[in-house]
C-alpha cells in the first residue's frame, strides 16, 4: 500500500511476545494514520476502565500519514495511551524522527502492552524486534539515555524517558531528537512499563504514488511558507513571537497561577529580548522547513554550559509568567531540567504556580514546602521544586500527581486554586478573555488544551478559514466554531502535519498531497468527515472510561474571578455561558445533552464500537 509501512507491530513486555499484523484496509480508509490509528487501536486494544498504570494499558506510537514523505512540516508522530493525569485518552504529538523510522522499518503503528520485569529498552531493527536490558540506564537523563543507546546500537533513532517517567510523574514526557510528546503523561505510562527507550532502525523504501507530483507540491509549500509574512518573525523569534501582543494588546497571558492576564515583568522573557542574546541557531522538527525551535545556550554565569532546544511560548508562560518569574535564565534552566528529567514544561510550571498560590494564601506552610519560601517569583525555589517533582521528593511528590490530584491530597480548599480541565493543566491562553477557547478547553478530549482546536488564533484575530468577525468576548456561536475547528485540526495529527503551518498548509491542500503520497482521491469534505469520525471515537473512548457531562467544567478561577487588568479586564466565563456554549456544542456535534454521541451519528460516521 503506497504511503504506508504496511504492518502493525505488537509488543507485550510482560510475556516478551512480539507479533505483527497486516495494516487493515478498513483502518486506512477510515482513520488515515497518526491520531486516527492511535485512537482506533486504543479503543480496540484496551481493557475498559483499567488504570493508566495497569500493564494492560497500551502505549501506542503512530506516525502521521505524511511522515517520512519529505512533506514540509509533515514529520509528526503520535504517542497515545490512557493518560494517568486525566484517566482519558492521552494523545501527544511530537516532531521527532522516530515515526518516520518506524515506517521505514515497516510499521504504521507500534502497540506496547505489559510491564517488563526489569528496566528494558525495545530495539526494532527492521523485521527484528528485541527487548533488551536497560538496568544500567535506569535513572539516566533523557540525553544520556539517547546517546548511550545510540552508542550501543549504532545508527538508530531513539525515543526515551527520563527519571520523571520512571518515577511516574503523571505529566512525564517522551523525547526524541530533543522534541517531546509532552502532554498527558505518556512518559509516565512508558515508565510504568519499565520501558526506558524505544530504538528504531528502518531502512526500507517508502514508496510514494507520484514522486514527481509530491516533490512539486512540497516545493510549492516551501515557497508559500517562505513568502508568508510570518516566516521571518516565526523563525527569528519562534512560537513566543507574539508574547508582547498577547500581553499588551489582548491581556490573556495567564500570570501567577491565573491571577492576572498580563505579566508586568515580561520584558526579559520576550523572545525579541532574548533571542538576539542567547540564540545560536534555529532548530527544527524532523522534516520541517520552518524552524520555530532554537538552540538556546548560556555561556557564562551560574548556568554556563546550558544548551537546550527552546524556549517555546508555552514554557515562557508556565516556567515564566505562571510562576511569576521574569528571569529568562531561570526559565531556560527550568526548561533544561524538564527536558533532562523528561517532563512536560506546561504541567510542571502550572503545578509550581499552583503551589506558590497555595503558599501565598496560607494553605501550604513553610513546613510543608520543606522550608522553602514559595512566593511567586522565587526562582531558586522554582528550580528546586522542578527537581523535587522529577524525583518525587517531599512536596514534589504531591505536585507530581498534577494539580487536580494534588489539591485532593492537600485538602484545605486547595481545589479553588487548581486550574485544570478534566485533570489536565492548561496552556498559555487566559480563556476568560477568549470564550471560544474556554469551550475548547472543556471539549478537548485530553483536557485543557490549545492544540485540539488552535482556536486561540482565530478568536484573538477574529478570523480564520471560513470564520470572520469572531468576537472573543461573546459566547454566541461557539459550539459550531469549536466543532469545526476540532474536526479540521485533528486532521493535522492524523496526517502528521504541524499546526503551526495551518496558515498556508490547509485542508484543500491536504487532498493533493494525500493523492501524491497514497494515490487515493479523497475530497476535502471526506477528509473533514474523517476528522469528525476520529473525534467521535475519542469521545467514545472517554465515555467508556467513565467520563460524564459533569467533567465538562471550567475551574473556579475562570468562572468566578474576572481578569483584573489590561485589555481583557473584567472578563470571565460565567457558569451560564459555560453551559450555553456546551449545549450549543453538543447540538453541533449531533450528540445528546449528556455528551453521548447518538447512534445515528455513529452510524452516519461508520464507527464500529
Amino acid at each position, binding site marked *: 500500500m503506497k504511503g504506508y509501512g504496511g504492518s502493525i507491530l505488537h509488543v507485550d513486555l510482560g510475556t516478551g511476545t512480539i507479533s505483527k499484523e497486516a495494516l487493515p484496509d478498513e483502518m486506512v480508509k477510515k482513520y488515515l494514520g497518526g491520531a486516527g490509528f492511535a485512537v482506533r487501536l486504543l479503543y480496540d486494544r484496551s481493557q475498559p476502565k483499567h488504570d493508566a498504570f495497569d500493564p494492560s494499558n497500551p502505549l501506542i506510537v503512530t506516525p502521521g500519514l505524511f511522515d517520512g514523505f*519529505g512533506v514540509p512540516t509533515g514529520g509528526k508522530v503520535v504517542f497515545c495511551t490512557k493518560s494517568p493525569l486525566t484517566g482519558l485518552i492521552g494523545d501527544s504529538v511530537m516532531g521527532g524522527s522516530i515515526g518516520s523510522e518506524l515506517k521505514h522499518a515497516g510499521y504504521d503503528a507500534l502497540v506496547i502492552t505489559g510491564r517488563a520485569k526489569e528496566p528494558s529498552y525495545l530495539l526494532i531493527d527492521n523485521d527484528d524486534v528485541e527487548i533488551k536490558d536497560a538496568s544500567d540506564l535506569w535513572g539516566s537523563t533523557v540525553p544520556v539515555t539517547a546517546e548511550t543507546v545510540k552508542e550501543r546500537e549504532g545508527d538508530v533513532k531513539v525515543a526515551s524517558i527520563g527519571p520523571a517517567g520512571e518515577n511516574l510523574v503523571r505529566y512525564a514526557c517522551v523525547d526524541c531528537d530533543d522534541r517531546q510528546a509532552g502532554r498527558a503523561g505518556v512518559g509516565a505510562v512508558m515508565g510504568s512499563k519499565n520501558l526506558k527507550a524505544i530504538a528504531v532502525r528502518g*531502512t526500507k523504501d517508502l514508496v510514494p504514488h507520484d514522486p514527481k507530483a509530491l516533490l512539486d507540491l512540497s516545493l510549492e509549500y516551501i515557497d508559500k511558507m517562505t513568502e508568508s509574512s510570518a516566516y521571518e518573525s516565526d523563525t527569528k523569534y519562534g512560537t513566543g513571537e507574539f508574547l508582547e501582543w498577547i500581553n499588551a494588546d489582548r491581556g490573556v497571558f495567564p500570570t501567577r497561577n491565573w491571577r492576572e492576564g498580563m505579566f508586568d515583568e515580561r520584558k526579559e522573557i520576550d523572545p525579541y529580548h532574548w533571542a538576539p542574546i542567547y540564540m545560536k541557531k534555529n532548530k527544527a522538527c524532523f522534516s520541517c522547513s520552518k524552524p520555530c525551535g532554537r*538552540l538556546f545556550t548560556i555561556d557564562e554565569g551560574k548556568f554556563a554550559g546550558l544548551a537546550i532546544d527552546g524556549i517555546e511560548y508555552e514554557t515562557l508562560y508556565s516556567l515564566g509568567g505562571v510562576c511569576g518569574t521574569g528571569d529568562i535564565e531561570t526559565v531556560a534552566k527550568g526548561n533544561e531540567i524538564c527536558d533532562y528529567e523528561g517532563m512536560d514544561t506546561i504541567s510542571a510550571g502550572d503545578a509550581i504556580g499552583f503551589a506558590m498560590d497555595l503558599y501565598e494564601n496560607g494553605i501550604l506552610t513553610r513546613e510543608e514546602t520543606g522550608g522553602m519560601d514559595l512566593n511567586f517569583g522565587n526562582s531558586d525555589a522554582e528550580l528546586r521544586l522542578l527537581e523535587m517533582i522529577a524525583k518525587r521528593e517531599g512536596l514534589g511528590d504531591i505536585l507530581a500527581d498534577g494539580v487536580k490530584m494534588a489539591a485532593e491530597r492537600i485538602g484545605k480548599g486547595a481545589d479553588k486554586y487548581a486550574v485544570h480541565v478534566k485533570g489536565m493543566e492548561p496552556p498559555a491562553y487566559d480563556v476568560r478573555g477568549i470564550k471560544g477557547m474556554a469551550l475548547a478547553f472543556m471539549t478537548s478530549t485530553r483536557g485543557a488544551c490549545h492544540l485540539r482546536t488552535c482556536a486561540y488564533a482565530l478568536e484573538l484575530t477574529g478570523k480564520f478559514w471560513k470564520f470572520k468577525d469572531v468576537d472573543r468576548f461573546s459566547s454566541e456561536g461557539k459550539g459550531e466554531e469549536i466543532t469545526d475547528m476540532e474536526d479540521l485540526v485533528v486532521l493535522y495529527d492524523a496526517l502528521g502535519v504541524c499546526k503551526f503551518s495551518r496558515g498556508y498548509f490547509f485542508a484543500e491542500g491536504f487532498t493533493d498531497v494525500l493523492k501524491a503520497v497514497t494515490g487515493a482521491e479523497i475530497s476535502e469534505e471526506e477528509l473533514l468527515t474523517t476528522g469528525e469520525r476520529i473525534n467521535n471515537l475519542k469521545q467514545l473512548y472517554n465515555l467508556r472510561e467513565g467520563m460524564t457531562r459533569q467533567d465538562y467544567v471550567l475551574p473556579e478561577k475562570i468562572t468566578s474571578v474576572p481578569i483584573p487588568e489590561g485589555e481583557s479586564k473584567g472578563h470571565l466565563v460565567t457558569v451560564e455561558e459555560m453551559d450555553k456554549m456546551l449545549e450549543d456544542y453538543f447540538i453541533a456535534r449531533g450528540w445528546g445533552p449528556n455528551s453521548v454521541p447518538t447512534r445515528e451519528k455513529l452510524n452516519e460516521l461508520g464507527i464500529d464500537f
Partner: protein
Amino acid sequence: MAHAIVPFPEVCTGCRLCEMVCSVWHEDVFNTTKSRIRITKKGVRLDVPIVCTQGNACEQECAAVCPVDCIRVVEGTAIEVVEDECTGCEACIEACPFDCIWMKEDLATKCDLCHGDPMCVKFCPIQAVQYLDGSEGGVSEKWTEARRLSGGD
C-alpha cells in the same frame, strides 16, 4: 573550480528534508540510506550536512582510486558515479577524505548536483546547504569545518 553544495552547519536545523528529497529525486523512493547528502547530529548543538566537495576541497581521490574509472564528469560539472559501471568495490569510500560517498545497496553513491539544480538546496530555505562556486573565498573551508564538526579528523 566547479559549483558544489556547500554546508553551513552553523545554521543547519537538523530537519533532514535534504536527505529525504535527495533520495526521492534520484530513486523515486524515500530512503535516507540511499541519500547523497547526510546530516550528522550530535546532542542538541550539532547538525552538520555532509556532502561532496566536487573536487573543491579534495583531490578527487575517489576518481583516482576507482579501478574501473566510473567516477567522472558525465555532463555539466558534477563528478558522479556511473552506476552501470560501478563494481561496488568500495575503494572510493575508503579514499574519500570527507566521508561523503556511501554504499547504496551494492553500488557507490555520491552527490551529482541533480544535474545542476540541486533539490536539497531548494528544500533548505534556512540556507544550511547552498549551491556555490567552490573557488569563492572561504568556501572550501566549509567542507573542512563540517568534516571536523561531524567528528572526522
